[in-house]
C-alpha cells in the first residue's frame, strides 16, 4: 500500500494538496502547528493511497513525501534545495517553482556547476533556498549579471529567477538584449500578474480589469496598455532560443512545467542557445483570494491570454554527414 508523509512543521495550511489528491484523501486537521498554521492530514485508509505524488507536486513547501504500493519512495525532497523553510505566503507558487528548478538541476547532475541569480522581488531570498552558488542582483538586472558570470565562466550553468516587475518592467532592456545576444543562460520568469514584494501594485502582466493597489478600479488598458506577453515578444527576435510558457497553478501543469525547465537547462548544458521559461504563478495574498481560488484564477483568467506551450525552439541540428538516416 502506498502512503504519504506530511511534514507538519513546514505545512502552511494552503490546502493545495487537498485539491490535488485525485482520491480526496487529504483534509484540514483541527490542529495548528508551531507557526500557527492549520495543518493538513491524511484522512483515507492506508490502502487507498497509491503514492501518485500529485499532492507533493502541489505543495509549495517541501511538506510531503510519497511512497507507492510496493513501498518504493515516489517523491522525495530534492538536494537542489536547502532545508530552510521559505518565507513565502501560504499557497504562493514561488516555492513550487524553486523545487522544480532544484529537482531538474539535481536530476541533470548540474548542481555543482550552477550559479543562480536571484532578483529583487518576493524571491529576493532565493539564495537562501537554492543549494548552490548564488548571486543576488539589483532589480531587473539579473540577465546582465548572468551574462557577466557566464562569459567569465563558460563551463558553469547560469540561470536567473525573476518576477514580472523585475523582468518585464524595470529589467525590460536587460532581458531583451540577453536573449538577443543568445546568451547561453536560462531564465525562469515568474508571471504572477502583480508586484508581490511591494504589496500588490500593477505589473506589466496585470490582466485587463484586474484590481491592484495602483489600479484600484481595475487595470485600464486605455491608460496602461495591455499585459506584456514576454514569451511572444522574445520569440520575435531572430536569434535562436528555447522559449516556453508553463504553469505552476496545479500539479498536472507543474509536471509539464518541469519538462520545459529540464529542456531549457539541457539546451544550456549542451551550449545550444538562450533558454527561457515563463511560469504562470499565484499570489493569493495580493490577489486577495484563497490559495485554491488563486489556482482557479490562473486557469480561468490568465491562461487564455498567456497560452501555454513551447513558443519557440532552436532549429534541429542537421545530422552529421555519413550518419544513418
Amino acid at each position, binding site marked *: 500500500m502506498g502512503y504519504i508523509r506530511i511534514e507538519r512543521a513546514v505545512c502552511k495550511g494552503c490546502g493545495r494538496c487537498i485539491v490535488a489528491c485525485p482520491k480526496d484523501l487529504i483534509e484540514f486537521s483541527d490542529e495548528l502547528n508551531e507557526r500557527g498554521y492549520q495543518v493538513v492530514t491524511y484522512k483515507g485508509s492506508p490502502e487507498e493511497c497509491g503514492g501518485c505524488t500529485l499532492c507533493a507536486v502541489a505543495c509549495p513547501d517541501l511538506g510531503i513525501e510519497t511512497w507507492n504500493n510496493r513501498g518504493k519512495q515516489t517523491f522525495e525532497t530534492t538536494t537542489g534545495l536547502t532545508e530552510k523553510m521559505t518565507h513565502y505566503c501560504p499557497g504562493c507558487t514561488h516555492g513550487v517553482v524553486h523545487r522544480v528548478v532544484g529537482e531538474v538541476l539535481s536530476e541533470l547532475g548540474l548542481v555543482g556547476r550552477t550559479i543562480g541569480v536571484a532578483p529583487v522581488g518576493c524571491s529576493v531570498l532565493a539564495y537562501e533556498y537554492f543549494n548552490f552558488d548564488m548571486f543576488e542582483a*539589483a532589480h531587473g538586472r539579473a540577465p546582465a549579471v548572468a551574462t*557577466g558570470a557566464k562569459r567569465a565562466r563558460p563551463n*558553469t550553468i547560469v540561470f536567473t529567477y525573476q518576477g514580472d516587475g523585475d523582468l518585464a518592467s524595470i529589467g525590460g532592456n536587460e532581458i531583451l538584449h540577453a536573449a538577443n545576444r543568445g546568451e547561453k543562460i536560462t531564465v525562469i520568469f515568474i508571471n504572477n500578474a502583480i508586484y508581490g514584494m511591494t504589496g500588490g501594485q500593477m505589473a506589466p502582466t496585470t490582466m485587463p480589469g484586474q484590481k491592484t493597489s495602483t489600479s484600484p478600479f481595475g487595470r485600464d488598458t486605455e491608460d496602461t496598455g495591455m499585459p506584456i506577453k514576454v514569451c511572444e515578444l522574445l520569440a520575435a527576435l531572430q536569434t535562436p532560443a528555447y522559449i516556453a510558457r508553463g504553469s505552476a497553478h496545479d500539479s498536472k501543469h507543474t509536471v509539464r512545467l518541469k519538462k520545459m525547465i529540464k529542456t531549457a537547462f539541457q539546451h544550456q548544458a549542451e551550449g545550444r542557445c538562450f533558454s527561457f521559461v515563463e511560469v504562470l504563478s499565484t499570489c493569493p495574498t495580493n490577489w486577495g483570494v484563497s490559495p485554491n481560488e488563486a489556482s482557479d484564477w490562473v486557469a480561468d483568467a490568465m491562461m487564455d491570454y498567456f497560452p501555454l506551450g513551447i513558443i519557440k525552439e532552436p532549429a534541429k541540428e542537421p545530422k552529421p554527414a555519413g550518419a544513418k538516416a
Partner: protein
Amino acid sequence: MTKVLMKGNEALGEAAIRAGCVHFFGYPITPQTEVPEYLVKRLPEVGGVFVQAESEIASINMIYGAAGTGVKCLTSSSSPGISLMAEGLSYIAACELPCVLINIMRAGPGLGGILPAQSDYHQATRGHGHGDYQLIVLAPASVQEAVDLMMLAFDLSERYRNPVMVCADGMIGQMMEPVEFPTEGAGEPMAENEWALTGCEGRERRIVNSLYLSPEDLNEHNKKLKAKYDLIAEKETRHEVYGEHEGADILVVAFGTMARIVKSAIDDLQSEGVKVALFRPITLKPWPYKAGRATMDALAPDAPVLTVEMSMGQMIDDVRLCADGSRRHEFLGEAGGVVPSPEEVAAKIKSLL
C-alpha cells in the same frame, strides 16, 4: 623596455591586459570609445572576452556578474554613462567585489559636451550610488601615468576587494604620448579565493549578496567596510609635490590634465623668481589630506592656496577640508571643455601675490 607612441585610451586598454584583465564589458560613449575599439581587436589575441552591452546599466551589472566569479574585469565609460552605473557600483562595493572602471570625464551637466572636463569630481569621489560605500579613485596626469595607475588599479581592487575608478579627462584619453609598459604580454589572472562563485562542486556553496535583513548585521557590515576604507586611506594615498613648497608664497592644487598645465605655468613663474609649488593628488579618493596639510603647513605664513579645476569648483571642497581653516582659499576654473591656459594660471597666481 622600449617606448611606444600610443593614444591615452588605447594605452589604458593595453595596460588592463598587461595587468591580467581579459574581460571587458562596456557601452560606447565619446571620449572613451577608443578603449573598447582597441580591446575588441586585442582581447581575442589573449583569449579574452569582449561584450558590447546594451547600456551602462547592463555593463556595470555584467561586471558585477563577472567580478563575482573571480575574474579581473574592466568597464569603461564617460560622465553620463557613469551616472547610469550608480546603482551597480553600490551593489559591487557592498558585495566587496574587485573590478576596475575607466571614467574619461567629459563636460556636463546633462548631455553637456564631449570636450574634456573635471566636473565629475564630486561624482567620482562622493557621488554615484546609494549607501555608505567608497571607490578608490586614481587620477593620471599623463598617458604613462594612466598606464601605471591601471596596473595599480587592478592590484588595489583585488587586494581590497573594492571597485577602483581610473578617472581621467578627455585630454588624457585622446592625447598621444610615448609609453612604456612594465610587463610583457597578458598578466596573471586573479588568484584563487574563498568568495568567488564558480560552482560549488567539492566545497560549501557561496553567496554574493548585499541584502541584510537585520539592522545589527547591516550595521556590522557598514563598520567592516568603513574599517577597510580607513585602512585604504592610511596606506594608499598618493600625491605629487612639484616645485619648492618650503616657504613658498602660494600653493596651487590641481589634478590630472589641469595639474600638467599648472606645472608649465609654475616653470615659467619660477624662472621669474616666483616662489610657487603645486600639490597634485593622484588618489582623489582617498584624498591625501595628511600630505596636503603638511605641504600647506610648510608654506610662508600668509600664503594662499589656489585650487585650479576644469569645473566650477569641486575638488576645492577637499582642499578646504585639508586646510581646515588654516589658509585663505582662491579658485580658478573653467567648464564646458574650456581649459585654463598656462598664461591664465600664471596671471591668476601673480594677481594673488
